[in-house]
């Protein structure tokens, strides 16, 4: 049996009654659980995964490796907070390995992204270096594959 969170992660547009039946809860219980988890931040939000290449909107996405000198008080968190305040920042992760933070940002043009890195990111206190990688093509995100479904050609099988 799937838990409520697993079901939501697969498809958050399912109505509460449908979720309830699948995970063996009542509709009222599901509604209460959802409210609780939305309040305490377990569920951060509900979003669609969009293939922007299929509509007329130019976007560029970049993954930026950032090296920082951690601040004495809150370590990396303080710098991270300064970075994620920017609207452009889609995701931000603290990393192990040869650099410290991964910043994923989207902009309309290459120049917009470059400007963000040069003017905003690199100038933050404690940031000692950046390496910007532009994403050329998205294949898969959140378990979903960026590919139109192939038409299935099959006879009816009686099984």
């Amino acid at each position: 049996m799937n838990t409520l969170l697993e079901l939501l992660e697969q498809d958050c547009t399912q109505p509460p009654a449908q979720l309830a039946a699948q995970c063996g809860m009542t509709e009222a219980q599901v509604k209460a659980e959802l409210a609780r988890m939305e309040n305490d931040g377990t569920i951060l939000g509900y979003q669609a995964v969009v293939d922007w290449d299929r509509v007329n909107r130019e976007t560029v996405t970049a993954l930026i490796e950032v090296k920082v000198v951690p601040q004495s008080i809150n370590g990396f968190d303080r710098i991270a907070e300064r970075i994620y305040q920017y609207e452009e920042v889609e995701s931000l992760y603290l990393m192990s390995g040869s650099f410290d933070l991964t910043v994923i940002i989207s902009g309309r043009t290459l120049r917009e992204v470059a400007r963000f890195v040069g003017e905003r990111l690199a100038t933050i206190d404690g940031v000692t270096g950046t390496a910007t990688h532009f994403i050329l093509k998205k294949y898969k995100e959140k378990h979903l594959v960026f590919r139109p479904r192939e038409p299935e050609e099959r006879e009816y099988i009686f099984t």
Partner: protein
Amino acid sequence: MNYDSILNQRIQGIKPSGIRKFFFLLEEMTDAISLGIGEPDFVTPWHIRDAGIYSLERGHTKYTSNAGMLQLRREIAAYLKRRFDLDYDHNSQILVTVGGSEAIDLSLRVLLNPGDEVIVPAPSFVCYGPLTEMAGGVPVYVELKGENQFRLTAQQLREAITPKTKALVLPFPSNPTGGIMERADLEAIAQVLEGTDIMVISDEIYAELTYGQRHVSPANLPSMYDRTVVVNGFSKSHAMTGWRMGYVCAPKPIIAAMTKLHQFGIMSAPTTSQYAAVEAMRNGDPDIEHMQREYDSRRRYLVEQLNRIGLECFEPKGAFYVFPCIRSTGLTSEEFCQQFLMEEKVAVIPGNAFGPGGEGYVRACYAASMKDIAESVRRMENFLVNLRRRQGKQD
């Protein structure tokens, strides 16, 4: 040429499914949502597909031994022990077949003499009767009842046995009903068979898909082990229908006879599929559990919804089918399915396609996406509302 006089009389005697007209209709309705096909909607897990591809890259393109690759038989034996507590010797008691279907065919052909009777509980998967007839036997159908949760009772079995009875088919977990046989049910069956030479062909292709309890094989009962042929495969447990990978386990002399027939008719099961199957046995348990959980979620939803909209539906504890009773609509199974398909474009299968006892029911397969299932329920409700309105006007 008069092919009627040329073709084998037995195959001519086997009637095509009575609901062929419905299937023709289905084939033309390409835009319908299908809850009709009994097949996992999952693609074979990648690591299993990759193992098949890798075997091709390494050039494993030849026959394997007739009984199937030794390493695969070893893995099957370990799997059956690990997951069902069944003991089979990989050297002499396991044969790898082309799907569970070949295993059923072989079982019947090595057991039956002309005129031997085979008890077939129904409604059930459609192959047992025709394959029995082709093997020279006579199918004896026993109608399973909704009020017994479509289980075979000791009483029903006792009444069906004659001096000619050679074998009993136990198709559980069941396609199309979703019914299962629990240990106590099997013990009652075992008691009836005690002292007879009746063999049991246990089709356990859905063994991994039970909800709330683990599957029990008749071969788990000590008194049944020597009379049981266990048929299983990878199609349903690992979403591998197209690979055609099955296997059969039985006492040594029976496997020896089957291997003889298999080596003449088939040679060996597909090699690529066998390599993929080895990977499925070694590292596929989490896949099984993942798919089982998924099906269980959809099952709960569908059963609850069907009951809500007024189609009485007993809780299926196995496989991936629901088998609601549609008698309250006043329609036959076939009328129901045809009208539902034409009006709402959703395909479900008339219960009478699965033999005696299926009339009055329809089969819906919930190995479909939650979106399709939810949409089908919405359309089913719509269909029922319209139907009742029409019937109200007629009265």
